[in-house]
Structures are given as C-alpha cells and as structure tokens.
C-alpha cells in the first residue's frame, strides 16, 4: 500500500471525528505553543541584543572597578573584590591614554545619579544624570538630533552644560527650542547644548530620560567619582581585528600600573561584548532548560491522550480492521494505517501550536518585546510533535495489526 493512500486514509479518519480529534490535541497544542513561544522570546531577545551591540558601531570595551562576571558570583567574591579592587582614577585614565598603542579612542565616564530636574514649574524626578568626556559621543555612537554633544574645553572648565535625552527635551520644552535654554539640575543652573534622537524603550524601559554633563562638572557637583559615581573608561581598538589585543594590552597596562604579581588576580574589571553575550548565554541556558521542560511535560501528556484515543479508535474500528484484513491488508498495512493516523494527528496539533505561537509572538512583539520565530524552532516543534505521535501511535497500531481477522470480523 502506497504512503499517499495511507495518509489519505489517516486524514479521512481524523476528519470523521473532528471534535474528538480537536479535543485530543489540546495537550499537544498547549505544549507546542508554549515551547515555540518561549523559543521565540529567547531568540527575539538574542537578536535584539545582537542588533543593539551591532548598533553601537565599533566594538568597545570598558575598564571598570569590578568585573561583574567574576566578582559578583556570590557574597564571598563580592566581599573579596570590594577589599581588593580600588576605584579607578583620572590618573589611571591618563596612564592608559598615553601608553596604550592599540586603543583607538578612550573616554572616561561616571556612573550616574537619579536627579531632580526643573524648568520653571515643570519638575522631573529621577532623571539619570551622568558625566562623560567629550569623545564619548563617538565611542558610544550617540545620535545627536539637535545642537551638539559636550566639548572638551567644557569638560576641562567644568562648565555647567547639559546634553539631554529626547524625553527630557519634550517634557521641559514642549514647544521645542531647547538649545541655549537654562534648566536646573539638583538646584544648579545648566545650559542645554544638545538633544539626543529618541530611542524609545528597550524591554519596556524608557531610554530617553537622561542627561549627560561634562565629567568634571559631574565630579565637582556630585561629590567625587567614587562608589555609585565610580569612574570607568570606555575604549575602542584601532581596528576591529585588533580588538582582543587591545583588551589584553589594557589589562597588561593596568596590572603594571597596579603592580600586580603574576599570581595575583586583577583588581579591576574589563568587560567586553563577548563577556556580555557569554553571560546572556549562561542565563538563557537555564531559562532554556525550564522552557523545554514545561512544554515537554505537556507534550508527554498530549502523547498519552493521543495513545488513549488511538486505543479507543482501534477498538471502535475492529470490524473495519477485520474487513481490511479479509480483503488482503497485511499486518504492516494496518500498522502503518494507525501509526500514520497518530503521527498525522500529532503533527496537526504541532502545526496548530506553531500557528498559535506565531500569533502570540506577533502580539508580544507588537506590545512588549521583540520575538523571533525561526525555521529551526518550527522544525524542532514539528519533529517533537511527530516523535510524540510515533510514541503514542506505535502500541495501538501494533495491537490493531495483530488482531485476528476472524475475531475482528465478528465485532460490531
């Protein structure tokens, strides 16, 4: 018997019991939908992050007080790092800038402080204010919409100028024309020199509620570059090919400057995009296992339900099996008929699950969070549901194939 005949038979049998088939598949559909949605979320997130990293332009790395991957593993490592690692200083910055051969650009930055910002009666709470050297505009690939970024002389003289995010501009200057206007940050007047292009939200977090002021201005007005206001450096390599060498060179220079012996740990941290993606992969490894386990259980339940229904179906169709055998169907023909029916049923469930996951993914993408449905996820889901179909169909099909033709014909 040809496969196409078997498939037609399976589809006819499934169609003959539409409602029952649909109910049978609920578990399967839930499992596959859950699986594909989770995979779409993870893949969407990965692509999003990759895109953001790519969007930064030239690859950059930061030199900072702590290495989050190494130092923040548990309370002991945090305590040890806090004892060992010293704050970076502007002298460290000058040291690196003068000696590093492979660094293209290096800027200095300070972690920011949520601050109150005012203009007239308009008050904004918790605007994130940070300090930066002028060259950070290129290193961080900032998109200036109006005016300009900070200039180095403004940094040197600790001028009170502000480069503001689109959100801040819109709220304080609803009618536009912010450049050259005065705003009050933490009680001190600043002059707006530039507005950044709107970035929208990333994972629901607004990206445009910030102000960047010159590093020195920040240091003077916020009380030194320590603790939450730690200094850190952000650097690019001369060419992308030399990126890793530039990272190694900076580490070497920092170790020399800190006079570390060959067996001592770094008492500073260098963070590269690879380290970030590595961390991400580690987090998602765990999420992925959970993401597979939950739909996996639903899939097993779905397979058991299909097996049950197939056993019922074999009993109901004993007479049909007898008739087919009397007309020359071999055991293999009957086995294939029921197995293909179970697998087809399961794959229909899988396909419905994939479709629902696609709908859910589209809604999630529209409202919250980028998702991505890859061919691999689709094929994986189809393979999993097909596999569940084989597992659930093989025993009922074997039972059907082994029926004695005379006994089967006697059934009604």
């Amino acid at each position, binding site marked *: *018997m*040809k496969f196409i*005949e078997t498939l037609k038979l399976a589809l*006819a049998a499934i169609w*003959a019991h539409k409602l029952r088939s649909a109910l049978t598949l609920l578990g399967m559909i839930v499992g596959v939908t859950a699986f594909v949605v989770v995979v779409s979320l993870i893949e969407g997130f990965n692509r999003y992050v990759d895109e953001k990293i790519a969007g930064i332009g030239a690859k950059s790395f930061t030199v900072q007080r702590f290495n989050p991957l190494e130092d923040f593993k548990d309370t002991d490592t945090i305590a040890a790092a806090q004892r060992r690692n010293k704050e970076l200083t502007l002298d460290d910055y000058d040291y690196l800038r003068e000696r590093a051969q492979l660094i293209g650009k290096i800027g200095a930055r300070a972690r920011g402080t949520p601050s109150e910002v005012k203009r007239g009666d308009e008050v904004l709470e918790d605007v994130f204010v940070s300090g930066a050297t002028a060259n950070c505009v290129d290193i961080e690939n900032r998109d200036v919409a109006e005016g300009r970024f900070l200039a180095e002389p403004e940094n040197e003289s600790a001028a009170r100028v502000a480069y503001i995010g689109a959100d801040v501009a819109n709220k304080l200057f609803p009618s536009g024309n912010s450049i050259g206007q005065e705003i009050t940050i933490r009680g001190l007047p600043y002059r707006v020199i530039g507005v950044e292009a709107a970035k929208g939200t990333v994972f629901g977090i607004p990206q445009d509620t910030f102000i960047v002021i010159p590093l020195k201005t920040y240091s003077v007005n916020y009380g030194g570059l320590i603790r939450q206001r730690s200094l850190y450096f952000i650097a690019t390599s001369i060419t992308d090919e030399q990126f890793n060498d530039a990272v190694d060179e900076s580490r070497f220079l920092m170790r020399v400057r800190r006079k570390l012996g060959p067996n001592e740990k770094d008492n500073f941290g260098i963070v590269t995009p690879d380290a970030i993606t590595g961390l991400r992969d580690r987090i998602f490894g765990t999420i992925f296992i959970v993401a597979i386990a939950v739909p996996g259980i639903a899939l097993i339940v779905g397979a058991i339900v299909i097996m049950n229904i197939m056993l019922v179906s074999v009993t109901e169709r004993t*007479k*049909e099996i*007898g*008739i*087919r*055998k*009397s*007309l*020359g*169907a*071999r*055991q*293999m*023909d009957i086995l294939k008929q029921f197995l293909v029916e179970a697998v087809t049923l399961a794959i229909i469930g899988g396909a419905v699950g994939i479709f629902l996951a696609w709908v859910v993914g589209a809604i999630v993408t529209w409202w919250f969070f980028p998702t991505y449905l890859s061919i691999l996820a689709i094929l994986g889901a189809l393979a999993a549901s097909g596999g569940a179909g084989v597992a659930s169909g093989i025993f009922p099909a074997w039972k059907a194939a082994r029926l004695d*033709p*005379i006994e089967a*014909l006697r059934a009604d």
Partner: protein
Amino acid sequence: MSDATVTLSPTENVINAPATEVDGHDPSMLISMRDIWKTYQMGTEKVHALHGVSFDIPRGEYIAIIGPSGSGKSTLMNLIGCLDTPTQGQYWLNGKNVSEMDDDELARIRNQEVGFVFQTFNLLARATALHNVELPLIYGGVSASQRHEMAKQALTAVDLTDRMSHKPNELSGGQRQRVAIARALVNHPSILLADEPTGALDSHTSAEIMDLFERLHSEGNTIIVVTHEHDIAERAHRVISIRDGMIEKDERIR
C-alpha cells in the same frame, strides 16, 4: 505436474474419479483439502469444529456447502478463504500449500485468489460503493487510475453503474450485497466464497442475488456458497453436506 492432469478440464473431472495424486494432492484441482482438522480450546475442553475433512474442487465449479447451524460451515469457509489455518491437515490452493504459509502470504492469497461475500455484507460504512470496491486493489498495489477503471467495471457487472458514489446506508440490502460481490470479483480471484449471502435478504432479493451467482458461474467463476437453506443449495451443481464437522454427503446434482 504431469501434462495429463493439466489438460483435464473441470467438466470432465468427475468427483469420485481416481485422482492423479502428487505429494498427496491432485495438482489439477483448484482446491485440495486432506484430512483437515480445526480444534478450538475452550478452557479445558477441546471443541473439534472440523474432524478430518477431505475434498477436491476443480476450477469453474459451483458448489454449495450445506449443514445445520454449528456444523462447521463457517469454519470451513474461513479455512478455504485463508482467513484461518487448520490445526491439522493439508490445504493446497492453486497448487500452493496454504497450511504452511505465514500471515503476510495468507494476506496476499486473500487479496489475489479469494473474493469474500458475507451475510452482513461487511462494507466500510463511511466509504462509497466505488471506494469499497477499490479496497482489494489498494492492497494489491494497483495504481489509482487503473483501480478506478476496474472498480467501475466490477460495479457495472453487478448493475450498479448509477450507485457508485452512494454510501452503504444509502443502498438497499440487495444493492449492498451486490457491492460486496463486485468487491469480491474486482481482483478476478480464483474463488468466490459466500457465507450465507442471502441470510440477511428477503426472498425476492435473495433470488436476484442467486441469479447473479448463476450468471457469474456461467462466465467461468468458481463459486462456493455456504448455506443452511436447501433451496439456495439446490442452485449449485454440487452439494457438500456437513454435520458435526464431518462431510456427510458430497454429490453432484446437475
């Protein structure tokens, strides 16, 4: 096989004529049964449905197997049709020893050599008449277009040209039995086996079906009808009477 036996035509073959035996059977016969037993184990008791049955059937014959209920007719028919194998004894069909065949070979024989007609028709309820008739061809691996042609021809042969796309519940009893006969004949089998084919039909329709058998016989088909009704048996050319699993009488009546 010797030439002498091959050239023997069915009509010349008188029932009790000395058979030309090879390996304990007559190779010229379509069916050759030797000392067939069928025993069922019922708990601790053994039920002998057939006790040492032997007979030969040449090609082209029209035979009735008659006997009271429980005499072993259906058991015998299931053996002839290769739905079952004997507990003991030898059965040659078309020169092949069926008693030694495995499940798949038996299925192939049922598909190619045997056409069944059952008392309760045994049609697939969800399938059209045409599809029901196509079933044996599907298992015989016949291509879809050829299958269609052959099934249509078979339905035409039983005067159901205008009922091909009807489902069994849209057909009368007589029409259903004719679909079953078309299905039995579509593969051009060696034997047409009917177990109480008129058992579920009224007398008028029964007569029609029996006329159809007569016509099929005149066209060269070998027909075996199992019945407990004498008037049905009398339309055959040879009647084998069985009682308690044994052959009581085996006579040519025309």
